[in-house]
């Protein structure tokens, strides 16, 4: 049996990355390198208001004083930040009025990715903001949303059209000097999505952004800001892919979420950046800062992520539970294979009274990969009656990979109830045998079991994404685990 599994795992290793094509779109590119001038130029090209330039420069000055974090369970090769392009935009003007104006090559790219840009063809119910090399190229369904007062547009546009909102919330959750990669993002971010849900509005459809890195040697630094006013609700999805290249490319995004009284934001990610080849060459470095603040009482932020791509993932979507009776959730599936490394988890910071958080993390490691969960649950002195439950499981497929769990529980209030559980194991042979006995072959059995293992997380995803995520996991484990 062991050898059979080895064989199956071998096959996993040989899977190709199916989104690894490259598109020849005419790009407007700034020269390599980073300095204040580059930052000013980015800001100029984007016709940004003054405060944004100031924000960038402050962040840049912070960043210069910072060092790349080394505490994660990751081996990160030295990154040459001067050998990188910080701005690349499709040449055709990014402001498009109809689909016909979109560069046909670009359209073809998104068609290949299966992303519905054309509103006629769109599956009803998903509004999309497509971002290629950090520039938003097309946002669909804007008018429908606008009727309800919902703003869903590219970040650059928001900066121009809603400067007050942007000024009020940008950096309020992830300050420009927060950490090395967030500071870098704050200095050079080129675009991203902006979402604003006004008081009392339930967003009638899923909002979604697709990210695509295309140009060589480009870093992608998008910035997403979601603000949900009192009693509002939105579900936001993001997906991402990149071409196959031998060099590593950097993706350092920042996502900020603010929820006011009784608002709820659900943020789902299916991350499928190019993971590098089976020798570990190439792939995206995914160093992302995601954080939400439940500012208003009874508000809720829920993160769901399915992480299958990237050569290195460094990512801790977090919730600051500031209002009373607020809720934070984190559901995660992280699958690593070949030489991938992931160090991901969450932080739940309990500040308000009666705050609750839930963490469900499912790691799957295969090949020679390293997969770590890292999390912090902090209950501050004033946070009476805080509740947290964390379940962090790791599944090992193969004997050359690693699975690690590093939770931190810092409890400063006696009324807190905090429970953390973690298990690490391989798939039970008795479970496989049970399936075999019912006529299911080992391959399917492993698939079934893995599916069951991640179900709790997948169930959190909106329907379309759940299907996609399941497919992704299947592809990643095809030939070995269904």
């Amino acid at each position: 049996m062991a050898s059979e599994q080895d064989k199956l795992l071998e096959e996993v290793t040989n899977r190709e990355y199916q989104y690894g094509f490259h598109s020849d779109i005419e790009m407007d590119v700034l020269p390599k390198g980073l300095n204040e001038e580059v930052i000013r130029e980015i800001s100029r090209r984007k016709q940004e208001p003054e405060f944004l330039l100031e924000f960038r420069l402050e962040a840049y000055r912070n960043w210069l004083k910072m060092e790349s974090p080394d505490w994660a369970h990751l081996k990160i090769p030295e990154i040459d930040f001067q050998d990188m392009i910080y701005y690349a935009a499709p040449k055709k003007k990014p402001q498009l009025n109809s689909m016909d104006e979109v560069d046909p090559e670009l359209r073809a790219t998104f068609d290949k990715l299966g992303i519905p840009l054309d509103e006629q063809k769109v599956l009803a119910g998903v509004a999309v903001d497509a971002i290629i090399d950090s520039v938003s190229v097309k946002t669909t369904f804007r008018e429908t949303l606008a009727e309800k007062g919902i703003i869903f547009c590219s970040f650059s546009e928001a900066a121009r059209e809603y400067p007050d909102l942007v000024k009020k919330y940008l950096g309020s959750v992830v300050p420009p000097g927060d950490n090395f990669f967030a500071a870098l993002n704050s200095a050079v971010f080129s675009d991203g999505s902006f979402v604003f849900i006004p008081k009392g509005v339930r967003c009638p459809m899923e909002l979604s952004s697709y990210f695509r890195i295309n140009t060589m040697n480009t870093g992608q630094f998008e910035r997403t800001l979601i603000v949900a006013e009192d009693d509002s609700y939105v579900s936001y999805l993001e997906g991402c892919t990149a071409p196959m290249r031998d060099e590593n490319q950097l993706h350092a995004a920042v996502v900020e979420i603010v929820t006011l009284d009784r608002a709820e934001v659900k943020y789902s990610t299916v991350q499928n950046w190019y993971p590098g080849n089976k020798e570990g060459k190439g792939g995206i470095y995914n160093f992302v800062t995601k954080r939400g603040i439940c500012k208003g009482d009874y508000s809720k932020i829920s993160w769901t992520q399915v992480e299958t791509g990237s050569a290195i993932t460094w990512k801790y979507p977090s919730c600051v539970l500031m209002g009373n009776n607020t809720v934070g959730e984190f559901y995660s599936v992280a699958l690593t294979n070949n030489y991938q490394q992931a160090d991901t988890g969450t932080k739940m910071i309990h500040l308000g009274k009666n705050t609750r958080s839930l963490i469900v993390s499912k790691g799957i490691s295969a090949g020679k990969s390293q997969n770590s969960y890292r999390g912090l649950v902090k209950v501050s002195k004033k946070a009476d009656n805080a509740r947290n439950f964390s379940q962090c499981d790791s599944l090992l497929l193969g004997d050359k990979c690693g699975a690690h769990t590093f939770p931190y529980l810092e409890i400063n209030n006696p009324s807190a109830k905090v429970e953390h559980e973690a298990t690490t194991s391989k798939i039970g042979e008795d479970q496989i045998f049970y399936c075999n006995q019912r006529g299911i072959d080992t391959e399917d059995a492993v698939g079934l079991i893995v599916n069951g293992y991640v179900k709790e997380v997948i169930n959190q995803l909106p329907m379309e994404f759940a299907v996609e995520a399941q497919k992704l996991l299947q592809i990643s484990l095809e030939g070995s685990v269904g």
Partner: protein
Amino acid sequence: MQLSEHDIALQRLFAENRELIEKDAAPEVNAAREGAMEAFSKLGIPSSKVEAYKYTNLQAWFKAGYTQAYGLNGATSEALKQFECNVHELDSYTLFTVNGKFVAGSNVEALPDGVEAGSFAELSKKHPELLKRYYGSLAKVEEDGFVALNTLFATDGIFIYVPKGKVVEKPIQVVNVLTGEQDLMVNQRNLIVVEEQAQARVLFCDHTMSMSRFVVNTVTEGHVAESAMLDFYNLQNQHNGTVQVGAYHFDQETRSLLNANYFTLHTGVARNNIFSRLGGPHAENHISGLYVIDKNQHVDNFSFINHAVPDCESNELFKGVMDDASTGAFTGRIFVAPDAQRTNAYQSNNNLLLTENAKMNTRPQLEIYADDVKCSHGATVGQLDEHAMFYLRARGISKEEANILLMYAFAYEVIEKIQVPALKEQIRELVEKRFRGELDKCDSCVVCGQLGTGRVKSE
């Protein structure tokens, strides 16, 4: 790393007193000081920026201002006259240290043939082959500034040697007493070697007998050879002017069994560094701890269980009750090396916070590089189970009484692990009394039933 002024002062202190320190020590022990010096000049006393010491800052305590205990520092074995350690019915071989120096043994002549238990300074010279083989083999100077500091200053402590096949039935009780009029820094060094098929039970009782401040940095290395068994207990019952870093480094060979239990019933600041390396197949260990603290006490149990080879099992259980403004910390790392297949490793850490000023930080960690493993950890911080509470009250038991019963029940799981019945009974009683408030929490020698020496005024 930049050394602090205190680190530099400690280095100077060593240089100035080197002759005195080396005078009675074995050549190997003196030889090791070179490496220790180099390591210490790199590491210094770790600050709380060092990840392993994140929750306990010891830099504030380890200063050269304290008198180093090179000898008895005025305290004589007279001090022991007033000290009758009476764990009820505990029939044991007893060794005494005062301020890190071995002073006397009682009943040791009755030890089985070939078994040695006594002064580290003396026995290390008598058994150079053991010293050469084991000294510093587990507690590596380059890995921890405290080990480096200890290796630099170590002169004496306890040496226990149980040769092949010898079974020591009765516990060997080591009473470590801190006393004297002066504030002291103590670097005690212990070595325990249990050879193939041998068995021993060792009990370390740590006490304070005077109101001076004590800063203690103890290193104990314990080797458990093939098919051997070591049952180890540490009872810490020191006044609140004590700061103790206790490092316990164990390694285990094939089919060996280690039980290590740490009871912290009273202290000032206590940090236990517990390392255990399962180095031969089918080795097994059970490591547990109970800390019941109040006032401003601080207890940090740091453990690292290293599954270096396949087919081993480890079980770890630490429980704590934090009252008043006390703070607890726990770090437990389970490491499973590549190819250490069929590992079973379990760990749990449960805590009760009794007041709004009590705090707990816990970090259970799994680092796993083999796939055929069953590993789990769990950690909880909370209060007593409300369902159990209601059940007890519904039977007519008052809230206060139910509280005590349930706190005791909480601690019970750890107490149950004690393999020496008389000791278990003693601890059981003490813990229950402790919860009832019938013991003066500040009595310095709760474990051995001594009268308190009062509290050291807090700084």
